[in-house]
C-alpha cells in the first residue's frame, strides 16, 4: 500500500501525538553554547579561536615536542650513523637504495629507504597525523563541525559550494581519501565536482602538513596562504564556468555532547593503524621507486626535458622534477626531498605549493576514479590548467615583490 506524502505526514503527526510527551525542558549549558557558536557575531571569533588552538596544538606537540625533541635526535644521532657504519660498500647500488647518500648528516639528506623512508613516515608524519586525528575526532564527535558548516555557508556559496562542504575540506586536511568519499553529502554534481577538484588541488593532507612543519616551519604560513587564496580564486572561477545548481541546504545541527572516550580511542586507533598499514609501506616504496629512477637516469632526463617550464615559467630549479614524481606516490616524501635541494625562499614556497597542487597522490587518484571516471578526467584536465596558471601567477607575484 502506497500513500501520498501528505497522508504520510498526517499519520506521522497522529502517531507522534499518541506516543510522545514533552516535559518542561530547562535550557542547558550545551544549548547556550550551541546558540553562541552558530550566531555569526559570537560564532566567528569562536571558530577562529578553535582553529587557531587546533593549529597550535598540532604544531607544538607533533612538530616541536615529538619530532624535533625526540625523533630527530634518535634518527640523526643514532640510527643514521649506525646504518652508515654497518652497511657494506657505500658505492654500491643497494647502499644507494637502502641507506642513500653516504656523506649525509641527516635522515632527510640521505634519502635511502631505511633512512629517509623510515624517518619521514615514523619520525615526522606519524606523530603529526596522530595529533591531527585526535583533534579532528574531537571536532567531529562534539558536534562542532555542522556548526562550522552553518557559519561558513555564505562564504562558501560564493565559490559554488555550501557550508557543508567544510566537512570534506576538514576531513581532507587529515587525508584526502575519505574526504573524496565524503563529497557524497553534497547535493548536486556541480558541487561534488567543484569540491573534489578543489580538494585534489588545494587541500594538503595531514602527512604533508606534518612534514612541512618539520622542514620549513617558518614558511608553512606562506604556503597555506597561497593554497587558501588558490582555493578561493579557482572555486570562484569553477562556480562561474561549470553549469549546474548550488541549492541552499538545510543542515541538521545536532546538540553538543562530550565525545565518548571509547569512540575517540577506537577511531584514533583505527586511523593510526590505517596510516601504519597503508602509508608507511607506501613511503618506503616511494623512496625505492625514486631511487631506481635516479639510478636509471630517468629523473635526470625528465628534468632536462622539463627545464624550460620549470625554470622559466614557475621559476624553480629543474631538480624539483624528482620530488614531483615522488609526489604522485606520497606528498610528504616529495616535500622531504624538496627540503634537501638548495633553494631561495621564493623557490621553496613555489615548489612546495606546486607539489601540493600538481596532482593528487595515487591513493586519492584511486578513490576519485571509484567516484566516476568522467569526473576524474575532467578534474585532471582542470588540474593541469590550474597548475600551469597558478604556478605562473605565483611566479609573477614573486617577480613583482622582487623575491623571485
Amino acid at each position, binding site marked *: 500500500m502506497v500513500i501520498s506524502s501528505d497522508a504520510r505526514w498526517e499519520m506521522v503527526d497522529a*502517531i507522534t501525538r499518541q506516543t510522545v510527551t514533552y516535559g518542561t525542558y530547562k535550557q542547558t549549558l550545551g544549548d547556550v553554547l550551541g546558540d553562541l557558536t552558530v550566531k555569526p557575531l559570537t560564532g566567528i571569533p569562536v571558530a577562529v579561536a578553535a582553529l587557531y588552538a587546533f593549529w597550535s596544538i598540532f604544531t607544538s606537540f607533533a612538530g616541536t615536542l615529538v619530532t624535533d625533541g625526540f625523533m630527530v635526535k634518535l634518527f640523526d644521532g643514532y640510527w643514521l650513523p649506525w646504518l652508515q657504519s654497518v652497511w657494506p660498500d657505500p658505492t654500491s647500488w643497494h647502499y644507494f637504495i637502502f641507506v642513500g647518500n653516504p656523506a649525509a648528516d641527516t635522515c632527510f639528506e640521505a634519502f635511502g629507504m631505511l633512512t629517509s623512508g623510515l624517518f619521514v613516515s615514523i619520525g615526522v608524519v606519524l606523530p603529526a597525523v596522530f595529533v591531527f586525528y585526535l583533534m579532528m575526532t574531537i571536532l567531529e564527535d562534539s558536534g562542532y563541525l555542522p556548526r562550522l558548516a552553518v557559519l561558513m555557508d555564505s562564504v562558501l556559496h560564493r565559490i559554488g559550494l555550501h557550508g557543508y562542504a567544510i566537512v570534506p575540506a576538514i576531513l581532507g586536511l587529515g587525508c584526502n581519501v575519505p574526504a573524496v568519499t565524503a563529497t*557524497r*553529502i553534497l547535493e548536486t554534481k556541480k558541487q*561534488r565536482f567543484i569540491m573534489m577538484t578543489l580538494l585534489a588541488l588545494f587541500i594538503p593532507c595531514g602527512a604533508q602538513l606534518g612534514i612541512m612543519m618539520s622542514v620549513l616551519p617558518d614558511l608553512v604560513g606562506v604556503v597555506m596562504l597561497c593554497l587558501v587564496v588558490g582555493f578561493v580564486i579557482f572555486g570562484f572561477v569553477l562556480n562561474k564556468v561549470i553549469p549546474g545548481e548550488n541549492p541552499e541546504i538545510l543542515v541538521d545541527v545536532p546538540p*553538543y555532547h562530550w565525545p565518548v572516550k571509547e569512540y575517540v580511542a577506537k577511531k584514533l586507533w583505527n586511523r593510526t593503524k590505517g596510516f601504519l598499514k597503508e602509508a608507511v609501506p607506501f613511503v618506503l616504496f616511494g623512496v625505492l621507486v625514486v631511487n631506481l629512477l635516479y639510478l636509471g637516469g630517468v629523473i635526470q632526463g625528465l628534468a632536462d626535458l622539463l627545464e624550460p617550464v620549470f625554470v622559466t615559467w614557475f621559476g624553480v630549479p629543474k631538480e624539483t622534477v624528482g620530488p614531483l614524481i615522488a609526489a604522485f606516490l606520497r606528498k610528504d616524501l616529495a616535500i622531504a626531498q624538496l627540503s634537501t635541494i638548495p633553494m631561495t625562499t621564493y623557490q621553496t614556497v613555489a615548489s612546495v605549493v606546486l607539489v601540493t597542487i600538481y596532482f593528487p597522490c595515487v591513493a586519492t587518484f584511486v578513490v576519485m576514479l571509484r567516484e566516476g571516471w568522467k569526473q576524474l578526467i575532467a578534474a585532471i584536465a582542470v588540474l593541469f590548467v590550474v597548475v600551469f596558471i597558478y604556478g605562473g601567477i605565483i611566479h609573477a607575484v614573486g617577480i613583482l615583490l622582487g623575491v623571485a
Partner: protein
Amino acid sequence: MTEGRADLPEGGTTVLMLGNPNVGKSALFNRMTGANAVVSNYPGTTVDFTRGTFIEGGHTYTIVDVPGTYSLEPRDAAEEVAVRMLRDCPDATVMIVLDATKIDRGLYITLEVMERGMPCIVAVNMMDAAHEKKITVDIAALQRLLGVPVVSTTATSGEGVRTLAEQIRKAQVANLGGIAKRLRGEEPRTESLRACGGCGGC
C-alpha cells in the same frame, strides 16, 4: 532464543539499518557486530555502507549500516546509496532507527519503508538524550500502533542492544491500513498483530 523463523534461508538474514542521518545507526551497528564503522556527531558521517555479521540464537545475521536518509527520494549521493541498498535487497529485514528526541522526523521514512512491504523492526535510539530533554516515548504504544517490534536503545552505553538483536527475529510486515485504523481508534489495537500476539511486552 531457541528457534528461528521457518522461512529463513540457510545463509542467514540480511538486516538493513535505515534512518535519518545522525541518529546513531553506526554506533548501534558497532555495538551489535563489534565492527569499526566510523561514528561522529554530525549528519552525513556514513556515506557508504558497511557490512557486519552477528549471531543471535544460533542464527547468523548479516547487518548493513546504510547511510542516513531523510526520505526515499534521495537528495544526494549518500542517500542514493541507501535507496539503492533497499532496492537491491528486497528480501531483507529493515531495522529502522529513530532518534528518541525527534521521533516525528524519523517516522516519515519509517512509513515509506513500511509501504514497501518489507519486514520491519524499529529501534528508538538515543533514549538517554530524550531522558535529559524530558521527552518520553511510549514504546509499548508505538509498538501497538505500528504493529512491528519497537525496542528502546542507547547505543553509546549499549542499553537495549541485546534486546534489539533478539527481537530482529520477530520483525513484521506492517499494514498501513491497520495503522490508520488503530490511530483513529477504530480497531482494537492488538488485533492485527498476528505473529507476536501483540502483548506489547515482548
